């Protein structure tokens, strides 16, 4: 699970100089490592610790604070079902249960992250995704999808893209707000990103 040379270079040459202290580069470094490997292994913490002069425990502890950093491998599709009030009132618990059922996983919110044996899917409940106007909202690999009602689950699993919410871009933690780089959103068009992002904030 070693960091690629490109990632190391990027951490050293780009992230570290960006901040007044090396430790501040930890979050983008972790994110970059996760983007590469899909999850964060202990050796990765050690490598990052070495680059940033941090004790490996410090690195691991910071990563453990955020649910978006994965300490275990996750499926190719990470499906996160919002369980907060707006979505819940719109039936997200049933959506979650149906997704689990269709994937052969035990249903119910108490399970946290669950993955299918083939490594294709991981499912977990999540907190408000700030897209309540599309409740019940489901996030797939950090892209918003919704509304996905229980009855929509088969169709959704067939082709999640059909439920993708236009104009709600995901966010690159590595590049930061200056350079939102997602499909269809060219890096270097931050003005656009912001204006569109702003217009969608209907709630």
């Amino acid at each position, binding site marked *: 699970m070693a960091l690629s040379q490109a990632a190391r270079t990027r951490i050293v040459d780009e992230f570290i100089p960006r901040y007044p202290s090396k430790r501040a580069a930890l979050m983008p470094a972790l994110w970059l490592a996760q983007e590469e490997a899909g999850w964060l292994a*202990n050796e990765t913490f050690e490598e990052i610790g070495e680059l940033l002069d941090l*004790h490996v*425990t410090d*690195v691991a502890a910071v990563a*453990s*604070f955020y649910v978006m950093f994965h300490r275990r491998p996750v499926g190719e599709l990470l499906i996160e079902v919002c369980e907060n009030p707006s979505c819940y009132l719109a039936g997200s618990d049933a959506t979650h249960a149906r997704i689990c059922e269709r994937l052969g996983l035990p249903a119910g919110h108490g399970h946290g992250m669950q993955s299918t044996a083939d490594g294709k899917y991981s499912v977990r409940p999540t907190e408000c995704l700030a897209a309540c106007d599309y409740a019940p909202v489901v996030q797939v690999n950090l892209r918003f999808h919704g509304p996905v009602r229980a009855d929509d689950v088969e169709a959704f699993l067939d082709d999640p893209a059909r439920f993708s919410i236009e104009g709600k871009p995901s966010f690159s933690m590595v590049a930061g707000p200056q350079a939102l780089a997602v499909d269809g959103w060219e890096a270097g068009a931050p003005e656009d990103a912001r204006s569109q992002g702003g217009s969608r904030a209907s709630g």
Partner: protein
Amino acid sequence: MTGAPPPATVTVTVDGKDVAVPPGTLAVEAARMAGVDVPVFCYHPKLSLAGACRMCMCEIGMASPPGQPPRPPGLMTACTTRVSNGMTINTEAPAALKAREGVIEFLLINHPLDCPVCDAGGECPLQDNSHAWGPKEGRFTEQKRLARKGAALSPLVVLDQERCIACYRCTRFMDEVPGEAELAFFSRGFASELRTAGDAPMKSRFQGNIIDLCPCGALTSETYRFKARPQDLDHADSVCGLCPVGCNVILDTRSNQVTRVRPRQNEAVNEIWVCDKGRFAHHWSSSPNRLSGPWVRGADGLHPATWRQAYQEAARRLAAVKAAHGGGAIGVIGGRNLTNEDAHALARFAAEVLETPHVDFRVGAQVAEANPLSPFGLDAFNTGLDAAEKAGAILLVGTDVHDEVPVQWLRIRKGVKAGARLVVAGPRATEADRLAFHRLRHRPGSELALLVGILAALVESPPLDADGAPRDLSGLAAAIGGTGVDQAAVHAGVDAVTIRAAAATLAGARDPLVYVGARLAIRHDAGAIGMAVGNLGRALGYPARVNFLVEGANGRGAEWAGLVPGPGGLPAGHIIAKAAAGEIKALYVVGENLLETHPDAAQAREALERAEVVIVHELFPTVTAQGADVVFAATGLMEKDGTTTSVEGRLQRIYAAVHPHGSDRVPDWRILSDLAAAMGAGLGYSAASEVTKDLLADVPAYASLEGKLPGSAGVLVRAVAVPAAGGGGFLTAPFHLPTAPRAAAGEGSTTTSPGRARMPADQREREAPPAVPPSPAAALGALAAGGGALFLVASPEIVGHETIVAETPELLSTVPEAYVEVNRDDAARLGIVAGGLVEVRGPAGAVTRVARVNGRVPSGTCFAPENLGSPRINAILRWSTEVPLVTLRPVVVEGAEATGAAVAGAR
């Protein structure tokens, strides 16, 4: 808004009482100064501020600006609020009481309240504060959080996560004091738990301190768990007997056994810390493996004897040697781990009864003079330990302070955090390198050349005097014989730029401090190194801020009590060499397992075998004791009343925690007094206090005490009156640097010669140990021909496989397998893989070690800890003035048991 200087004090009102406190004082401390204890959990005066627990809430009011209406006071955390003039701190305002009650109620929501089975019960701030400030009952009736209980954070520290109140004292300590942030809170909120990365066991040698810091029973000691209740324990104030720092400790005992060791606060010595060796290695005292009485050798080997028999036998044998060869045929070695009283009795015994000048506590010593700074009229150690806290720069030469003086390393760290620039000189990376401002990675054995290089750099650009003029160092230029930085740099193997930069740092620093390792004070070139170090102090304008460390818990005390060669006396290394050569006929060894601690195991064994008489004082039946003619079973430092003197020269009292009644062990001073009586001489001691009285009267260092013993903090004394600052000229060191470093022989070898500065021939004649085996050049050639000759650097780790450690299995289990540290390039060249077995072959044999492959040693050098493995690394070395050369060869699995010629292992 005025330009007036800030006031020297500000006045605050604590519970209606006015106190003047320094500006910047925390409200909690201001209250304390007013005699009011504000309850706290997360606040700790030795740690950074966290404001994590909210227990210290007080109603705090600020004075309002003139003409403004008064501001209402509010609840604030006293531990993070700094005082301002006119502040009112109401610690028992109804709102504060209510807030505290709420904090306790919340803390206890998820606290298991298993006080009846909790080690902390009876000495628990959470318990105390709950009783004092908590609500009568809590309202929480749900299921409490369940979490890890009895989880080992390491073999030494156990975590009960349910009891943890998340005060962050432990994590702050690890991060801030030893700088080993190996413990942290993982996850967050309700799910937070203390863990290490990958749940690896904690490795720090200071981790035991978090047990003391934890304000509840979340962190407990594996060795003390479920052993006692605090109210069952008796206490004795003592001083740790495991290294020369002399940390103050409290020995807690139950049924005449030490159950735990706690630090005793002494701000001048250990503050409130101890290292894990000092804390955990106490089980030796109650070990069934101890010698329980004296032994005497008969025709059929050693057998138990009565004390009377043992005294008579020892007296008879010693008298016979004395009669046949004179007292000068007897060598006395050891005494670095005794009390001053024992040391004084031993010094008297050697001088008055044995009548020999060959006395030395400094195992392996190659020079007779014990204090390398004596030509400067200085003690070997001249500052207090706390000086490291306020120094502007600290130079470390020839010492791994983390392992040699562990708790002092914490003080040095504190100094560095306060701005001191650390200059670390050494042949390999040590813990101190992590904080180094300059790293001077010199060739093994070339410390003198390096020091001369620093002196030459100072001559080039002298420090400025108070008036801004460069100091006149022409005397120094002459003293170093005009040696230039570049010339010295070549010999030291360090680039001249770094030497100049380090010298400039030292020259520009306020109150610079120099620490030199104990080994450099006993090595063949100690005299010259002392000259260089003394000159350095003078050149920097701080003649009395240069310090040599010493080995042994009471090495300084032994030095001052006179356990050093008398006129014409031989140093310890030479005593062994002469005994091995048959010239010294009897050895009197006190508390020293020479087969493990003398640098040449074969020579030590030869000496012990060849000597006609060997008398040993010991705690355990060590291999050395097993070869003796008479073995006296002695008591250890935790079992003695008396005094010790720490590395800095602090005379401290110790009180026996364990009384030998019922056992047949006797303090060393009494053995010596009784043996003297059996030899018809009589030192005439029947109580430790009598020896103390003599000690204070006879030893010049203690004259200033006028016969009075110090109180619990001890007293810093000096053997030599410290001269006024700046006084004295420069002294010429008896050394010269060879014109070119010897080139390494052998193909494929990247080794380079250590730039050992040579003494002039006549000096060498006098100081060089006799019977040094083959010429180093020949050895180098022979070994290099094998393709893998490396210089070997060896020094002890803080915790090793010593007998005393082995009696605490939990501590022993944290000691790594014996290893050899090799540079990656050398490893690649020699086919050595990390974690693989390696045969280390030296001039006297070979041992097998596990390879550590890294960049901590430079190419051409390897490192092996002295106190790990059986046999020890001294099994392959010869006692010599040369840096040893070894060859490394990966071991194929079938040959894994090939451990070479060697003595048997630990005892």
